């Protein structure tokens, strides 16, 4: 006889801590904010935009992973979030196509 189907689990395990876990991430996010503001005043030249955006992406990733709990989410939720990023990448890629190829067509 087949065993009963296991109910779907959206999060794989209960939260281990109520305050400590989010507090550590919060401190990290504030430290990254301070670092990003500090980096703005360094003479980084053309790399500055990439550095600033890189720090912001790390902050956003922390928010997605811990505060929005993608680190413990089910495959369904992770796949849905990833789909958003995939469509976003299509937007950037197809949107950039004109700018990336225009010099080849009309130098």
């Amino acid at each position, binding site marked *: 006889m087949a065993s009963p189907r296991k109910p779907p689990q959206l999060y794989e395990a209960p*939260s281990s801590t109520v305050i400590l876990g989010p507090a550590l991430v*919060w401190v990290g996010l504030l430290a990254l904010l301070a670092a990003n503001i500090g980096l703005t005043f360094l003479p980084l030249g053309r790399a500055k935009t990439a550095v600033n955006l890189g720090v912001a992406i790390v902050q956003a990733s922390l928010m997605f992973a811990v505060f929005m709990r993608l680190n413990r989410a089910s495959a369904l939720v992770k796949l849905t979030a990833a789909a958003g990023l995939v*469509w976003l990448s299509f937007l950037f890629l197809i949107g950039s196509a004109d700018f990336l190829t225009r010099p080849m067509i009309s130098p």
Partner: protein
Amino acid sequence: MSQASGVLHEPFTSGVRQREATIFAIWIFLASELLLFGGMFFAFYTYRHAHTSGFDGGARHTNLLFGAINTALLLTSSFAMSVAGRALEVKRAALAEVCIWVTLALGVGFLGVKGLEYVQDLHEHLWPNTRFDGADPASRIFFGFYWTMTFIHSCHLLIGLGFLIRLGIMARARVLEANSDSVETTSLYWHLVDVIWIMVFTTLYLVGK
């Protein structure tokens, strides 16, 4: 985390299935929000690539202090909202309620600071019309993006505040645990609004400075 919803609604016959559908649906919505703001960011960086000096000149007019305070406020509000959801899971409804009100207060604080900044911007003629106070015409395009992105973000935040007030009322009525799905979806929406602000702050206040 409790895997089942508190109150069952039509057409669901299982709390677990209802919760799965709710979380799935809110993530579909959040993905569409990413595309809305993604289009704005893409347009911004495309224009900036074409008019770098004008855009950087515009960025030098934005108030870094106001922007940094607002970012810290929203990061703290996300921390409070995160604690609220986790507290509810371990049946600490009183802590969850306090955190919901703290999140609400920080969100209102954000709008207050943003309002002060808007007043200062208007005083300095940074509204992109014919009286615009900018030497480079491209700075006017920058401020077109500045007002559009910050205003649309503020509208999202205002909607989030409405959801938080709803949760606060539920907490007062002692029905928050029975509506744990609403806490989870409001929390996810609020965090995404904060993520978008992190990118708006970096784009408008830091990149061109």
